[in-house]
């Protein structure tokens, strides 16, 4: 019985480890992973279904910031990632595919205000600043 260890020992010596060296390489994230939200304000029709279905009440419909209020007069979802359980129900129920869950899972932060996603237009923001 004791000798049974020897072939296993040699196999383990020459086989690859189960883990990967994380910061340098990582396991690829598959399609359909439920990570951070990507929100397209232009597609949104302000139906509020995402806020209604959210089991953790992480989504709240709020008005757009003052400077873009003339272009976006309705209410838009504010997503609190601190409350979110990443179930993806908001993505599934959205009739216009305006909310999507991306592959980004690096969400830890020291600043609690970072976890709240306010409605901001996707493209405009990059152009302006």
């Amino acid at each position, binding site marked *: 019985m004791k000798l049974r260890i020897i072939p296993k020992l040699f196999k383990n010596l020459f086989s690859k480890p189960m*883990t990967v060296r994380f910061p340098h390489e990582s396991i690829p994230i*598959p399609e*359909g*992973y439920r990570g951070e939200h990507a929100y397209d304000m232009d597609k949104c029709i302000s139906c509020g279904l995402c806020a209604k279905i959210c*089991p953790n009440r992480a989504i709240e419909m709020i008005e757009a910031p003052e400077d873009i209020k003339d272009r976006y007069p309705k209410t838009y979802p504010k997503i609190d990632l601190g409350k979110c*359980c990443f179930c*993806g*129900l908001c993505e599934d*129920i959205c009739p216009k595919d305006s909310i999507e869950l991306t592959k980004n899972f690096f969400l830890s932060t020291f600043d609690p205000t970072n976890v709240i996603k306010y409605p901001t237009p996707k493209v405009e923001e990059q152009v302006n600043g």
Partner: protein
Amino acid sequence: MIDEMEPAPKGTDYDLYFGPAHPGSGNFGVKLKVAGEIVVSARADPGYLHRGFEKLMEYRTPIQNAVLSDRLCVLEPLNWNLVHAEAVDELMDIDVPERAKYIRVIMAELSRIQSHIIWYGVFSLGTGFDTGFKMAFGYRDYILDLFELITGGRVYPAGYICPGGVRRDFPNGARDKILKVLDKMGEMIKLEELENPALGARAKGVGILKVKDAIRLGATGPVLRGSGMKTDVRKDEPYEIYDRLDFEVPVRKEGDAYARYWIGIEEMKQSIKIIKQALKELPEGEVIDPSWKKPKLSVKIPKGEVYVRNEVARGEAAVYMVGDGGSKPYRCKIRGPDFLHMIPVLEYLLKGAQIADVPAIYWSLNICPADMDR
């Protein structure tokens, strides 16, 4: 209640607290009264993980409850998804497509394997066999990768098995990946089956539970099967497609910690067998009832009540749901197998045991505080 323990008399009598901050106990404690090396009496100390599921479920619609039901047990969320989904299906009279039934069973069995792997890991850790722990958690990751591919999350599937079917179909290549992972699991089981002298010596003849006592104390699942009673909800009252599948129910008569450990290993083999059969016969078609394709906000749960029971990795799980015509269940009672394993059975087994045997007995019951405290 628990604080009524008498002060220890002078000499060798002590009060010993095992948990809730013990690395090997989970969010659960046992207050032991010891005389020398022997445990005189044990009192379970639950309540550290109470989240009030039954009340929370009364404020949520079925699809939101499906997401919530993940959290009933961290180690096998898909099995708990299934119990909840079945209760809603039965109460609302939803037809689940054939393909969804197969996928449900495949996922539930993968979840069972994963849960048994963790059990093997922590049982090895508790009995001082660290290699087993490392090995188990290494191999568990292969299944977590599968869950990530299929459900989109590693540990929590977020209501993957939802009322009406399952939320997503298998992605391309999932079938081959499942078969590959099953091969890995077979490889792991072969390693686990090698009788480790350290583990055998610590577990054999420890914590003997006779079948009479097991029934009296309300044990179910692997604990009851380890005591010699052949019972399995999958066989006795088949749900989904279990009546079409060929598998065996492992039973062992000894009733000690080693027998329960052996049941875990055998069940993993049976689960692999079940998944291979289900994958072979997996039909094409829809995976969810068409009316539930988009998550449903406004549903009408008809008046009535259902009681659905399933076999989860730890024993018998059940959901008793009452509808009153509204969109939320009027009452949702959850029966977790661990409530009875962790309080009456554990207290009974620890009485008269040696202190060194406490972890072996504790972990051989395959307990999870999450579904006990709920």
